[in-house]
């Protein structure tokens, strides 16, 4: 289905993504872990084609999207939505407009200029917001929302694209533990209910363990682990994070730990 082959990206001398190869045969939820600078963000940005690879290829279905340009590239981007750590919404615009930005690929520049969105798409945007539990914020400005709410608006924008793949670059890294869980639950639900592939960069090991069907570990641009989360032993993690014998998993998991102390799914279901 999705095939990444020998993907490499260098910035001058620095090789940020080094010969990354993996294959995904059916929609699943994949977590990419690795310490800061391992190349996780770069990998996702190349997959979405916001950055260009130095070499290697990305194939989806039977289509090679590595070298696509112009409308073909934008078509691919609309099928492979992206979620960012800092939400990357347009702060001065209202929530619904931000969600509708997910349809820009189908809109002409002129229609965009006059803010002409068809009524059924506006309805659909609000439905998606409802699904994510934030419909009541629809008319507010995006920057009036909390971080967790903004991230859910970003997920709504991604869903508005009706994508086959959702790429999430550290979607919970700037959220408090409660909101982090709400957002991760939403991503998991999207995968299970809609059958979309989700690939998320994650800082913490236990988030990857808890939510993902498969974990890819990166170190210095290379894939050093690829397998089921159960196989992710402390030794394997030590290898990914490049830590010495003093490595402890807690070092990578401050967030979820506090979450467990705070204790609960009940708190968050509201």
């Amino acid at each position, binding site marked *: 289905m999705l095939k990444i082959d020998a993907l490499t990206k260098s910035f001058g001398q620095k090789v940020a993504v080094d010969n990354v190869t993996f294959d995904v045969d059916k929609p699943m939820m994949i977590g990419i872990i690795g310490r800061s600078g391992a190349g996780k963000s770069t990998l996702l940005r190349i997959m*979405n084609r916001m950055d260009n690879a130095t070499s290697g290829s990305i194939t989806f279905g039977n289509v090679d999207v590595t070298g696509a340009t112009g409308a073909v590239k934008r078509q691919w981007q609309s099928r492979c939505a992206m979620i960012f750590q800092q939400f*990357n919404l*347009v702060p*001065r*615009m209202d929530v619904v407009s931000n969600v509708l930005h997910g349809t*820009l690929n189908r809109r002409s*520049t002129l229609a965009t*200029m006059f803010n002409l969105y068809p009524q059924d798409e506006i309805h659909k945007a609000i439905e998606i917001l409802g699904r994510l539990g934030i419909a009541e914020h629809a008319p507010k400005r995006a920057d009036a929302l909390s971080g967790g709410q903004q991230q859910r608006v970003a997920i709504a924008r991604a869903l508005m694209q009706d994508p086959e793949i959702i790429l999430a670059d550290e979607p919970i890294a700037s959220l408090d533990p409660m909101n982090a869980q709400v957002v991760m639950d939403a991503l998991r639900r999207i995968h299970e209910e809609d059958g979309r592939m989700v690939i998320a960069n994650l800082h913490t090991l236990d988030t990857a363990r808890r939510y993902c069907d498969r974990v890819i570990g990166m170190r210095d641009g290379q894939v050093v682990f690829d397998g089921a989360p159960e196989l992710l032993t402390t030794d394997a993690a030590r290898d990914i994070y490049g830590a010495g014998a003093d490595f402890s998993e807690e070092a990578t998991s401050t967030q979820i730990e506090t979450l467990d102390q705070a204790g609960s799914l009940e708190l968050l279901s509201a």
Partner: protein
Amino acid sequence: MSDATHTGSNSTEFIQHSYLALVRRRRTYGGLTLAIFVLLMVSGFMIADDRNAGGFWSGWHQVLDFPKDVFSEAWEKRAELPASLAKYFPSLIETINIAVASTLIGALFGLVLSLLSTRGLARWPRAIPLFRRLMDILRAIPEIVVALVLIFVLGGGPIPAMIAIALHTAGALGKMFSEVAENSDLKPVDGLRSTGATWAQSMMLGVLPQVAPNFLSYALLRFEINIRASAILGFVGAGGIGAELSRAMAWGPGRFDEAAAIFLLLFGTIVFFDQVSSRYRNKLTEG
């Protein structure tokens, strides 16, 4: 212990010394710069005075003669002033029209040029130097030169003036816009681009809302400047109130009252738009 404090005070002394030396050096440079500046001013003035046929010193008291003539004649015929004001009002509107049109067109081009030449936003990053140089050139050529060339080619009238001012405005505003755009937040742009939006769409939705208040404020400032430019270009055949003024003045005594009326119109207009635009600009940058 005492050793450590000793070396400590020693190094403090050293820093004091070297800092004072630095200050002295800076002052010397400052003094030198000032001296060179004064020298250049004096020599430049002397050269200008030499070249000036009449000589500045012999002619400067006549500077006041012209306004005096205009004033006295206007005062004698003050009863006709309202009629003159009404007579020249249409050409004032023409001058303002030229300024409005050229500011709008110039700002639009400046906007596109600025986005094309801002790192991080540019449509073709490799062409950034090209668009920057283009703006430099547009800015460097005075409006009056372009206007004269165009009037020579196209003949007189408001169109050459409009094109000339619009070109200059595009260069000037493009540079200012680009500086504002450079500081804009790229996160929304990345977000929009990731959805498969076109460059134009991402700029329109991601950048424009951020920079609009600053851009408008600069454009208003430019509009003030362009009213003056448009009046001046009238002198060289671009029509409007400048043309009327040049006609009235060339006529010499006898129509000085009309020249005075035109001066009044121009002065009033400029003050009016200065006030309006500064009020709006304050609002824009505060809100």
